[in-house]
C-alpha cells in the first residue's frame, strides 16, 4: 500500500495490484473500502490496478473537515492522486456511487483522462435518476427466505437509508445468485468507521446537472457505460439515456449480471474492459 498527502494534508491511501498499464479505480458504497473491488475479476492480470481508498475510508485517514467527504470535494483527492502518480492522463474506472465522483472529475478535468469506465454507475451527476419501481427486475429469489426482507431493504435504500443494516439486508438482490461467492463478497469493505464518509458523500450536495453536462462536452476520452441486466440500481435503459451526454459513450450490458458484474461473470467483464482499455 502507499499513502500520500492530499491538498489539505489528509493522508490518502491506495494499493497497486497487478501488472500492466495503470488503471485508477474509484470505489462506490458510498463509504466502502476499495478492497471490495478485489482485482476486478482478474483484470489485474493485464492491468496495474491503482485501487484508491477515499478519505475517511479504508487505508485513508479521516479528514479534519467533514465537509470534504462530499463527492464534489473528493474530486480534488482524485486529482491529487493523478499528480502523485505522475500520470499526464489516466485510465479511470469507477463503480456505482464512485461513478458520480468520476463523472464530476471528468467534468472538471476532461483533459486528464485517456479512458473513462463507469461500471454500474450512479448517474445523478448527469441528471439520470434511478429506475422507477416497475422497471426493477426483482424476479430472482422470489421463493428464498431472504426475499421479502431484501425487497423491503432495497426500497429503504432507494429512499436514501444509509444504515449498514439496510445495506446488509438488501444484498441478495445485488448479485446474479446469492451463493457462497456472493455472500463472501457482499460485506467486504463495510465498516462502522466509514459511516461519516458514507453519510457525507451526498449530504447537502447540490447537483449541477446543466453545467456538468456542458463541461462533459470537453471530454475527448472514450467512455464505457457498463451495466448489469438485472441491477436493481442502474438499468440498461439508464445507460442508454446517459450515453449521449458522455460524448457518444459505448454501452455494454452484461447479461445475467446485477450490481457487481465482475463477481457475477469475471471472464465476460475482464474481456470487455480489457478490449476497451487496450
Amino acid at each position, binding site marked *: 500500500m502507499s499513502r500520500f498527502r492530499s491538498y489539505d494534508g489528509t493522508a490518502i491511501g491506495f494499493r497497486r495490484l497487478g501488472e500492466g498499464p495503470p488503471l485508477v479505480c474509484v470505489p462506490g458504497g458510498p463509504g466502502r473500502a476499495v478492497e471490495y473491488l478485489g482485482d476486478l475479476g482478474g483484470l489485474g492480470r493485464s492491468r496495474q490496478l491503482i485501487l484508491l481508498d477515499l478519505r475517511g475510508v479504508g487505508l485513508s485517514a479521516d479528514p479534519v473537515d467533514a465537509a470534504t467527504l462530499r463527492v464534489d470535494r473528493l474530486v480534488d483527492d482524485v486529482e491529487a492522486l493523478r499528480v502523485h502518480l505522475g500520470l499526464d492522463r489516466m485510465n479511470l474506472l469507477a463503480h456505482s456511487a464512485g461513478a458520480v465522483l468520476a463523472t464530476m472529475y471528468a467534468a472538471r478535468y476532461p483533459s486528464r483522462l485517456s*479512458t473513462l469506465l463507469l461500471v454500474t454507475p450512479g448517474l445523478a451527476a448527469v441528471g439520470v435518476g434511478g429506475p422507477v419501481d416497475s422497471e426493477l427486475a426483482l424476479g430472482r429469489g422470489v421463493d428464498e427466505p431472504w426475499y421479502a426482507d431484501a425487497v423491503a431493504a432495497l426500497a429503504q435504500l432507494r429512499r436514501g437509508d444509509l444504515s449498514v443494516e439496510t445495506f446488509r439486508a438488501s444484498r441478495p438482490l445485488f448479485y446474479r445468485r446469492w451463493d457462497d461467492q456472493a455472500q463472501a463478497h457482499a460485506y467486504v469493505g463495510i465498516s462502522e468507521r466509514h459511516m461519516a464518509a458514507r453519510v457525507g458523500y451526498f449530504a447537502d450536495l447540490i447537483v449541477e446537472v446543466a453545467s456538468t453536462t456542458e463541461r462533459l462536452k470537453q471530454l*475527448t476520452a*472514450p467512455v*464505457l457505460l457498463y451495466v448489469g441486466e438485472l441491477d436493481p440500481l442502474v438499468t440498461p435503459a439508464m445507460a*442508454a439515456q446517459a*450515453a449521449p451526454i458522455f*460524448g*457518444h*459513450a*459505448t*454501452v*455494454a*450490458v452484461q447479461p445475467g449480471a446485477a450490481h457487481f458484474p465482475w463477481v457475477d461473470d469475471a471472464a*465476460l467483464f475482464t*474481456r*470487455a474492459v480489457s*478490449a*476497451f*482499455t*487496450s
Partner: protein
Amino acid sequence: MTEFRAESRAAEGVSPNSVRPRLDSTDLTLLRMLMSNARVANNALAKAAGIAPSTALSRVAGLRSRGVIRSYRAEVDLPALGLGLEAMISVRLSTHTREEMDAFMATVSVLPGVISLFFLAGQNDYLIQLAAPNADALRDFVLEHLSSHPSVQHTETILVFEHRPGTNTLGALTN
C-alpha cells in the same frame, strides 16, 4: 446505388435476376463444405458428395458462374491484427429520402473498420458492425463519420462481447 442493390440481394437470398437457381442435394453438400472451408480439396468434396472429382470440379465452377458462390474470402482474426475492439452502432437518420439513404450506405460501407452494414426495418435504420484498434478509434469513428453527418439523428454504440459466425446457415433449407 450499386452498393445498396448488392446488399439488398444478399438480404433476400436471391440471384441477381431474381430467379432462384435450381440446386440439388449434391450442390448443397458441396456448398456446405465450401462454406465451412473454401480451400477444401476437390477430392474431399467429391467423396463427400459421392461424385467423381471431375464432376465436383464442374459443379463448383457452375455454382461460381451462376453467382451462387459469390466469392471466396479469407476470414481473419481481427484481434490478432490489432483490431481488438468490436462494436455495433445503431444509427437513425433524420430524413429518409431514397437518395440520402443510398448515399449513406455507399459512404459507410467503405469506411475503415466496417465489417458489415445492415439496413434495418426497425426503429433504427442501420446497424454498423465495426472493428476498431481501441476505444479512441471507436469514438472517433462515431464522431467523425456519424454524429457530424447531416442526415444522422441518433447513434447508439454497443460493445460486442463475442462474435461467432454460424456454422449451419444452410440448415434453414428444407429441401
